[in-house]
């Protein structure tokens, strides 16, 4: 169908070139950073950042893993991500499902209730006061979980998907005496795997990557999630230098930071090849149904 004129072929070439340039822009800093993290500190000072390390060294990673804070960071991040994702998914999923039921008379009022905060919020200070004065969340691990549990966006995304499930299926299950919760968990959820997978990934990513909640509420070092540790890396390095069991080895300042960065994003890199497929699918569903 498509004619292959000279100008068309030139156009295709140009488009490939532009896309490739942007793709390289997206990838290059990560690769360079990784190479920096496996170089020796001295070679960086002498030769600058090189794509191929002049002097190979794993000292930075050894230091990162020798300090116990990385393990507590991992424990906090994993706990927050797993518990937060499961709770958020169940809470938002149930709300989205109930709102997809057409015979629910107040579903539009409820949808409005969930929609208003997307347009109008009270701002940071009242929210901060509610969290610290009423809920007493400061220096509690729940401060990293609870404020992010409900997302109106995810509720609407799931509701739109649940709406496409045939209502007669649900009705016939009801007639057979199946209760509402069982219908949801045993019939609706298995029929909605694409959207559930996508929303799960969205939520898990948000929990894993969040550090602003820690910035607001956490002072205790033992409750730092990984990303907040990375944010506070300078002060942690100070700590390692003073109290660490490193003996008289100099902590390599540059490479230590970058090595920590790669340690904190390790799980994402491992999951990415499997996960991105669901992301793309989910965005497609959201965009078409949206």
């Amino acid at each position, binding site marked *: *169908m*498509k004619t292959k004129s000279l100008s068309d072929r030139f*156009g295709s070439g140009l488009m490939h070139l*532009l*896309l490739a340039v*942007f*793709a390289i822009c*997206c990838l290059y*800093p*990560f690769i*360079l*950073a990784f190479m920096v993290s496996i170089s020796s500190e001295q070679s960086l000072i002498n030769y*600058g*950042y090189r794509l191929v390390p002049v002097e190979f060294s794993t000292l930075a990673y050894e230091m990162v893993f020798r300090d116990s804070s990385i393990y507590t960071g991992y424990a906090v991040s994993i706990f927050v991500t797993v518990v937060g994702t499961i709770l958020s998914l169940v*809470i938002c999923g149930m*709300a989205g*499902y*109930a709102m997809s039921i057409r015979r*629910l*008379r*107040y579903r539009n009022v*409820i949808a409005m*209730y969930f929609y208003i*905060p*997307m*347009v109008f*919020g*009270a*701002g*940071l*200070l*009242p*929210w*901060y*006061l*509610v969290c610290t*004065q009423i809920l007493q969340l400061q220096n509690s691990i729940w401060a990293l979980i609870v404020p992010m549990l*409900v997302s*109106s966006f995810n509720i609407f995304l799931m509701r739109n998907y649940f709406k496409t499930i045939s209502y007669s299926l649900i009705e016939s299950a009801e007639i057979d005496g199946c*209760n*509402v919760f069982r219908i949801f968990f045993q019939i609706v959820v298995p029929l909605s795997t694409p959207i559930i997978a996508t929303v799960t990934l969205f939520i898990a*990513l948000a929990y*894993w*990557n969040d*550090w*602003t909640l820690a910035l607001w509420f956490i002072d205790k070092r033992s409750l730092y999630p990984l*990303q*907040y540790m*990375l*944010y506070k890396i300078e002060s942690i390095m100070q700590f390692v230098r003073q109290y660490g069991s490193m003996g008289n080895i100099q902590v390599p300042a540059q490479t230590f930071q*970058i090595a920590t*960065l790669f340690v904190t*994003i390790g799980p*994402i890199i491992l999951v*990415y090849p499997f996960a*991105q497929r669901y992301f*793309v699918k989910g965005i*497609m569903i959201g*965009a*078409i149904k949206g």
Partner: protein
Amino acid sequence: MKANITAPMTPASNLNSKVLKKHGFLWEMKKNWAYYLMIVPAAVLLFVFAYLPMPGLIIAFQDFNFVDKFRSPFVGLANFKFYFTSTYAWRTTFNTIFINFNYLIWTTFFSVSFAIMLNEINGKICKKLYQNVMFLPYFFSSVVIGKLVTRIVFSDGMGLANQALKLFGQDPVVWSRNPNPWAWIIIFTHVWKNTGYQSIVYLASITGIDEQLYEAASLDGATRWQRIRYITIPLLLPTIITMSLLSLGGMLRGDFATIYSIIGDNGLLFKYTDVIDTYVFRAIKQAADFGPSAAVGLYQSFVGFILVWGSNKLVKLYDENYALF
């Protein structure tokens, strides 16, 4: 089909709903209690974190202290005066709008362009490869991105940017002391991070366009550029407008996480990068200026709401179908 058989469809269903209404609130609750129960956890949490703070806006009109809390003495508009007469008001408002506006323009420009290109090129493997690599930065937290920007690309000594400058025979720049470029660095960091994600959204809506339109255009001898110009872009316009409208509400908020992870508390760079959210954060956490912070929050919400509502009205005047609500 069914509508044809039971011809007086509308009156019948009206009658039906009238009968239902007779049963009232309690009847509905009794019949569908399980469904409403499913909504309760989400509704309660939303109430606590989104509705409960709203009365707290009263602090904007008070001289807040922790003893009296919400019964602190009223001071009228003094908090607003404090902010709007300070040098911060103009600077933070301008920076916020400047940065957000550029976010919107450039992210839309690049992601629409790349979406069209991804749609036009042949070769499934190339397409997948570009898409996956472009999508990659979206997966990392703003701290990771911030560290890459400040330690690898724009680090003072031997970063990528200084290497590039050296290549063109320019002197290296001490980035951490030079406020001028940082607004643009923040803008393009955000664009770089989000373009991959948004281009997939746009690509999804391009693939929804009817293939026959392109075939007809080809038969009429339309060139590729004409097909893009007269089919793809006009049909993409509703999506572009919707996405832009959605981000207008946050015009005065800004991407706190990205900006704070890049700039942090480096006061030397505030001139062009201090936005309202970072100002409020410092006012709360470092200065404990609660009254003014609440006032600024109210200002943000109010302007954001006006922006969404107003631009939606404008869009509605232009074409009813493009409006959000």
